[in-house]
């Protein structure tokens, strides 16, 4: 076994250990209840923990398959997220052609370009080519009703669900001197930090949450949850410096940046959900809601993390 593989194995073992601990706590909370009155909060917590096992197993499987596995996994995540986004977004018959292009051309092409390392094209495919070509395709539907709004929604869905999320596997294309063959660890750093921020926001919010942050956007987000979650997961990110090309203070600063972005990712997508009268984007992941509920924070942090690392660490 090579050195990077051992590192990954250690991390996954650590995550599995943590999840086991959470599972034990969840089982204890469940067991502590008197038989008649089971709390929906505890049931949801246990459903979430169970789903985490599934998600970690899936991520582990993709990592084991290597570069291709990770690219395919994120292409699937993009597909499901875009599916959820467009499912609740108002479009008309005239948009059908543009949507077919989005799902079956731009999405696969974006991930293909990442797989062949073509940075010059994958970084502008959706912001430039899709941005110009999709409205052209939509005009062929010959329906001008709320045209700008419809075109904007399709573009927004592609940007968040495909372009932004594809920057996670795009981390594999960065060539950092002295870090060759270890790029999967950048993904671990990003995903673990941002997702742990979501978990700790939930935990701190449940334990100490008093002051609602913006009840009109997200009824469950509290100031205590935000501060506690971001600080704790920044500590997690800093503690992971040894798997990255960063110094500990750099790891902490990057973790802080992506945690704040991740928080606002969830916030922005919540605003869209509320506007559409929804609680969750879907029902794919039990206890969590839809795919987009789980990856909103990653969509907002991945592109900026990618560019910060590219700017300072890639010569």
């Amino acid at each position: 076994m090579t050195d990077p593989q051992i590192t990954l194995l250690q991390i996954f073992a650590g995550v599995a250990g943590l999840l086991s601990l959470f599972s034990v706590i969840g089982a204890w909370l469940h067991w502590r209840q008197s038989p008649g009155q089971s709390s929906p909060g505890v049931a949801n917590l246990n459903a979430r923990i169970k789903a985490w096992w599934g998600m970690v197993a899936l991520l582990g499987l993709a990592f084991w398959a290597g570069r291709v596995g990770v690219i395919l996994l994120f292409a699937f995540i993009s597909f499901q997220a875009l599916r959820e986004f467009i499912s609740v977004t108002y479009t008309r018959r005239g948009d059908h052609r543009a949507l077919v292009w989005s799902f079956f051309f731009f999405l696969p092409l974006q991930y293909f370009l990442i797989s062949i390392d073509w940075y010059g094209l994958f970084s502008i495919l959706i912001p430039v080519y899709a941005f110009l070509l999709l409205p052209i395709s939509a005009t062929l539907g010959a329906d001008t009703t709320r045209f700008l709004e419809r075109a904007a929604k399709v573009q927004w869905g592609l940007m968040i669900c495909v372009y932004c999320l594809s920057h996670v596997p795009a981390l594999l294309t960065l060539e950092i001197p002295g870090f060759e063959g270890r790029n999967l660890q950048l993904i671990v750093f990003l995903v673990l930090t941002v997702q742990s921020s979501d978990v700790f926001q939930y935990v701190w919010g449940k334990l100490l949450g008093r002051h609602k942050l913006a009840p009109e956007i997200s009824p469950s987000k509290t100031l205590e949850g935000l501060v506690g979650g971001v600080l704790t997961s920044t500590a997690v990110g800093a503690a992971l410096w040894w798997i990255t090309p960063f110094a500990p203070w750099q790891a902490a600063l990057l973790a802080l940046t992506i945690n704040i972005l991740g928080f606002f990712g969830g916030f922005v997508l919540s605003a869209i959900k509320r506007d559409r009268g929804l609680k969750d984007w879907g029902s794919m992941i039990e206890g969590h809601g839809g795919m987009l509920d789980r990856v909103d924070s990653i969509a907002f942090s991945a592109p900026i993390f990618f560019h910060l690392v590219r700017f300072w660490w890639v010569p």
Partner: protein
Amino acid sequence: MAPRVLDAWAGALLCGFAKLLTGVRALWLGCRPDLRPRVYFANHRSHGDFLLIWASLPPALRARTRPVAGADYWLQGPLRRYLIKRVFRGVLINRKVSRHADPIACMAAPLAAGESLILFPEGTRNLGDGLLPFKSGIHHLAEAQSQVEFVPVWIENLGRAMPKGSLVPIPLLCTLSFGAPLVLQPGESRADFLQRCTNALLSLAPPSD
């Protein structure tokens, strides 16, 4: 015996395929699945509509629920004919000439025998938003079978996923909302009953944008 098994497999396969493709979620908002004879009536935007309702029913109900389908479309070609007759066990209605058989009697017979129906009271696929005015058949049926419950089912997104005339469907997630059952009230007029059915179905639609 073997062909019957084959029909059941074909049905299960189609249901699995429809569920996989549309990620369909059935929300039983106004009632629970029940074996008593019912008429599930829904908005109609796509040929796949009845398949989606059929697939969302628990298997025990599915075996006793039959779609009402237009004979002119479903009797064209051996494949459609096989599917509608053997797999879905559809109740075929001739929409053009009603000389042969009384369509209301055709629909009432399975209900009297304890089976349920899937019906699209708009009569044809709606290419716009909202609902088309309901045909009066649903009222005649309610008069003929006054004990039967009429369950509104709003189908969201299937019409967008595969609109009429497009070759490639887009993989949208579909939702079926089952509302509270309606029963014809004594002395209720046709217009009132149709209006009540229309309102019940529309109330299940997501807020218009």
